[in-house]
């Protein structure tokens, strides 16, 4: 068992121009647990996730992810998966091939990585030969989550993963996230759906409570 938290944010300040978004935010996600930050639009949930994912530089404060400073190193991206930014799909590559590519890049055998099962659970098995740009926005969201979940990782950082999903899709995603946390993975997400977050095995935390 690792002795450091999956995410440790201390005294984080971020502002856009003169408007402060995060003013001394502090958050801990213990390893092997899930935390879901909630709050109204514009309160800084995505900004917090972007900073933790190293995609945005905070004005000040300290962030440790899996015991190290987040960055663009291969080690970081082999341990952390984020859906904070939408992907640009590879042209001419099918839905299944995208998932297989991610598995192979992480040294997994595509036959043993559970791609078929994941596509089935996310309702994408009938679209396995389609190219992602031809999918609906909800299906694209599901594919992003399939890719995030079939590859090995230690921490998932998801920004409103329930967005654009129908009720069945939400239930399938919540179940897979709960499995992920139950098998030792750590989860940090932002959501507007408390029921979904709880079903995902995440503890709810409001953005206000992060500011002491």
């Amino acid at each position, binding site marked *: 068992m690792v002795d450091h938290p999956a995410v440790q944010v201390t005294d984080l300040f971020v502002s856009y121009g003169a408007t402060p978004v995060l003013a001394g935010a502090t958050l801990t996600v213990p390893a092997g647990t899930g935390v879901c930050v909630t709050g109204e639009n514009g309160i800084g949930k995505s900004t917090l996730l972007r900073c933790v994912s190293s995609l945005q530089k905070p004005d000040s404060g300290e962030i440790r992810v899996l015991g190290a400073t987040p960055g663009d190193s291969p080690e970081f991206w082999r341990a952390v998966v984020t859906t904070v930014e939408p992907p640009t799909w590879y042209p001419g590559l099918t839905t299944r091939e995208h998932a297989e590519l991610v598995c192979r890049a992480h040294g997994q055998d595509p036959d043993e990585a559970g791609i078929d099962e994941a596509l089935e659970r996310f309702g994408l098995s009938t679209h396995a030969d389609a*190219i992602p740009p031809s999918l609906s926005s909800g299906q694209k969201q599901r594919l992003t989550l399939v890719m995030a979940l079939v590859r090995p990782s230690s921490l998932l950082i998801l920004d409103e993963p329930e967005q654009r999903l129908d009720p069945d899709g939400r239930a399938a995603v919540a179940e897979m996230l709960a499995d992920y946390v139950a098998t030792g993975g750590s989860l940090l997400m932002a959501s507007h759906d408390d029921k979904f977050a709880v079903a995902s095995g995440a503890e709810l935390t409001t953005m206000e409570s992060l500011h002491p």
Partner: protein
Amino acid sequence: MTATSVPLRPVRRWIHRRQVSHRERGATLGNVYFAVLFAAVVGGMVHQQLAAVFWPGHPNLGAAPALALALVAAALLVLALRRFGPVTLSRPASSFLLTAPVSRRRLLLPSLWLAAIGAAIPAALATVALLGHAAPRDLPAASLAVTVAGAGMVGMGLLLLAAAGQRGPRWAAVTDRLASLAVAAGLAALVALTAGWDPPVPSAWPPVPSLVTAVGAVTAVVAGAFLLTVRSLARTPNDRILESAKTAGTLFDAAFGMEPSFVTDMIERRYWAHRRLTSARPPAWLPVLTGQDLMLALRRRSRLLWLAGTTTLPLLLRSAPSWVTALAVLLGAMIAGTTSTGNIRTDSGNPVLSRMLGITSRQALIQRAAVPAVLATLWATTALVLLQIAGDLPPGQWWILGFPVGLAGATAAVRKARVGFVRNDMLPLDTPMGTMSTGPLANAIAGPDALVLGVPLVFALGAGSALSPDLVLIQAALALIGARGYLVWTTDTDRVELTTR
């Protein structure tokens, strides 16, 4: 239910009045003034050189090559018109007027006229250029004028072919295939003519009355077809008009924002949207990203066939100085490499999937550069072999340079794919003719500038000296060191993203 038709003219006039009220007074006139002044200044500076290029003192092109070139130009015009629409609307008009209860024929007719003029002018200009190189100098002006007018009518006829393709998918497929075949046949004929083929062609120019009769007949046919097209114009399907409206909008964006990648992305998206794919798996022994590139390259076999066909094109330059041939081989190698750099472009533009894959930028670039390097090497080697067989090269086994030249071409292709969007924040250059934006220039140069790695080949062919072991060694060393330097300088073993943050 009764359909109410609203007159279109007052609607268009109302829109025009509103648009004009938002524009700066005289802005359009100012733009026209600048364009005319620019053309006049440039024309005044280089008119002698232009005359020498387009209308040399003596004709230097035979009738057969001129006909082959005319065939290629006509087929390219059809393909361009098909890609453009040709009947189109502006993006706002496609959103608001296409769904409005107005006459569709009247809505689309201005676009058809514009496209007809737009097809006739390049057809006439191409004919002027060909006549300038192929027509006897003692030909009466009337003969030239009638020929050019006839070419303009043929251009309009080709537009009507393309417009018919827009209304029916079957006819579209036939038109596209025939046009592609015509391009291939024209290029093959040019290569065969360069290699010594001597087909029988009429030796004398047709007399003016015969030309007038022929052009009159073409005009009658085109006019009849035009009327038929106008009658069936309203039957152009909505999806085709919307697609062409998007094309027109993207071309406008690309021209206005000086961002050619908008067009390449659109073409790529459309190509794959029309393909039916079956998931496959690349060989497991290949590195993962190389396998993906290989799979994609094999999915576009027709493109590979075209690429193979283009290896003959440097043969057309046998009358040009040898250094021009060398440059063509280098450029060709770069273009061959570019056919497989789409994934590098995707990763450079948006690194989200690079992060998901978690491969170091150096490993990623090595794996991604493999297929472009193989394609560029095969292209360069084949082109050099063909030039050698045709006897256009000094003594020596020049094909040995295929690998270093391919490596230089692949480096250029990879660099071009990573260049990203045009930077419009770069300092502009003040010139006597106005301010010039340097962003698009830097964007256009990034990529081809890496072809400097093939300079030894250019110098050696330019000097006409036999291939020496020293040259092979220098060229190979320069290409290898240059490619490795590019890799080491622009990637990192401790970074995933291809572009530094």
